């Protein structure tokens, strides 16, 4: 990956993070922690990886993305807005009455949202259905689904994993945002899903462990997934919850809490400074 490409991704990811804070602050509710931990992956998928056309969100041959951890919606919305699906200014309407930016993704209302999600464990099954549809219709699009590491405590995830492995859905790539924290605390203390890679491998997945904030590793993993035949891929992406905002990093308490005005100013200040540094270095 060229330095220029890396810089463009850093800028995109920082804009996504700014959008997350903007949305959650104005909504006075929402989930910043898991949206920030997955912002780099969202940036890579929407600005580098996926075959998509923001002018034609319903394009039949587009790659699909399912945000199975639907509470990271502010991150998805910020990625879509910055990619040109709808105005960035709309991000501040998150969770307001009359806004199409629902608390969790609504495919009927928001251009670019491929599946309505929010109730954990369900998106991954829909992603399997989309991948199976491509096989049935002879299409070459790929399907990506982002899961939370807490989310995989849901039994439906493993029903879907068994299905994906059995159906040899090599056009399906799951990415687990492994930030290590869920609402009640550390995932290892609540009900440990580890070892995550071995569990997916047991269901027939090729598994890759990466750093969720390293674009080179994300690029390599997704390239490897594309080349994998006869089975799905699971990328376990070790991330930092709240990544990019100093006081949110590594704190379970920021799973579903909105910043107050002072915290909002600090978070926006930190991210703006980061953005200026990236843009200055371009």
């Amino acid at each position, binding site marked *: 990956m060229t330095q220029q490409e890396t810089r463009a991704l850093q800028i995109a990811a920082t804009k996504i993070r700014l959008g997350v804070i903007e949305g959650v602050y104005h909504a006075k509710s929402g989930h910043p922690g898991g949206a920030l931990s997955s912002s780099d992956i969202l940036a890579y998928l929407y600005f580098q990886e996926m075959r998509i056309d923001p002018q034609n969100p319903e394009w039949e041959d587009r790659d699909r993305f399912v945000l199975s951890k639907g509470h990271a919606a502010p991150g998805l919305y910020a990625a879509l807005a910055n990619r040109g699906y709808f105005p960035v200014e709309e991000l501040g309407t998150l969770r307001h009455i009359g806004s199409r930016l629902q608390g969790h993704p609504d495919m009927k209302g928001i251009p670019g949202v491929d599946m309505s999600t929010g*109730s954990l464990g*369900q998106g991954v*099954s829909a992603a399997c*259905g989309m991948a*199976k549809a491509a096989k*049935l219709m002879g299409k070459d699009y790929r399907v990506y689904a982002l899961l939370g590491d807490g989310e995989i405590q849901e039994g439906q995830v493993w029903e879907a994993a068994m299905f994906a492995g059995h159906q040899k859905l090599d056009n399906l790539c799951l990415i687990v945002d492994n930030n290590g924290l869920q609402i009640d605390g550390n995932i290892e203390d609540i009900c440990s899903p580890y070892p995550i890679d071995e569990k997916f491998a047991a269901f027939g997945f090729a598994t890759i462990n990466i750093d969720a904030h390293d674009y080179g590793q994300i690029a390599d993993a997704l390239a490897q997934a594309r080349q994998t035949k006869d089975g799905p891929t699971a990328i376990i992406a070790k991330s930092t919850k709240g990544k990019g905002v100093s006081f949110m990093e590594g704190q379970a308490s920021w799973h579903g809490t909105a910043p107050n005005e002072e915290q909002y100013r600090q978070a926006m200040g930190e991210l703006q400074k980061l953005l200026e540094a990236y843009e200055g270095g371009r």
Partner: protein
Amino acid sequence: MAEMKKKATRESYGEALAELSGTCERLVVLDADLAAATKTGVFKKACPGRFIDCGIAEQNMMGVAAGLAASGMIPFASSFAMFAAGRAFEQVRNSIGYPHLNVKIGATHAGISVGEDGATHQCDEDIALMRTIPGMTVINPADDAEARAAVRAAAGYAGPVYLRFGRLAVPCFNDPASYRFEWGKGIVLRDGQDVTLIATGLMVWRAVEAAELLKEEGVSARVVNIHTIKPLDRELVLRCAAETGALVTAEEHSVIGGLGEAVCSAVCEGCPAPVLRVGVEDVFGCSGPAVDLLEHFGLTAQNLAAKARAAIALKKH
């Protein structure tokens, strides 16, 4: 009455799907290890390339169906009513209902006529559950011709549909040559002035039999077949309330939340008249032969006739 041919509507379901396989190229059928019982095995034989056995995982099956529909396919997801509507309720609500995806749920073995398997498999709550999902169409065919027609109509309709079929063979009283399925429209099977029997599913023919019993006593009973419980043919129900002044509903489902309550709501709001409900009372089912169970739980022509007399007595003169 001459002996009529009998057939379970689940058989009609499987056969109708197989017939559609030739003309509907986006049709795909899913099952959860019950293809022999739900009769989707008939489709599998006709069109193995578009049959997906998801294994014993109904929640995933509903989500897979949602993903297939979101990608332009027309999936029919099949299981027993207990698992399709019950176990996978939240998946149906959130992954299919909320995004209003074009998924058809083919739920067989509904009601107590499942028989010997007993209460764990006898779903008397599915109509109630499915009715509460915004935008969900709920269809409960009464016989073979109606079930086939309903499957064809559902395949041609854009949106989620819950189709309810039975395990027990029931009389084929509709003539397949002349039968016409109209989405959301009830069918007046016989006219009458004193009371209306509004029935769905396997209770429709029992309502016709009840009307015969009532006729012998000089009571003129109208019989209405409601195959589409949601959206309800409110206009027809209110007309019956106005013209006959008393109604009895009949369904192989709990008296809570099903056709009976749907009719009660419509009548209460639009044309108040006494409505008595025949269905499974607020109890769980039990093991036994299907026909004996229907009698045990009062789902009989005799009980319908008795309720009809009681409803007539409640009329304000």
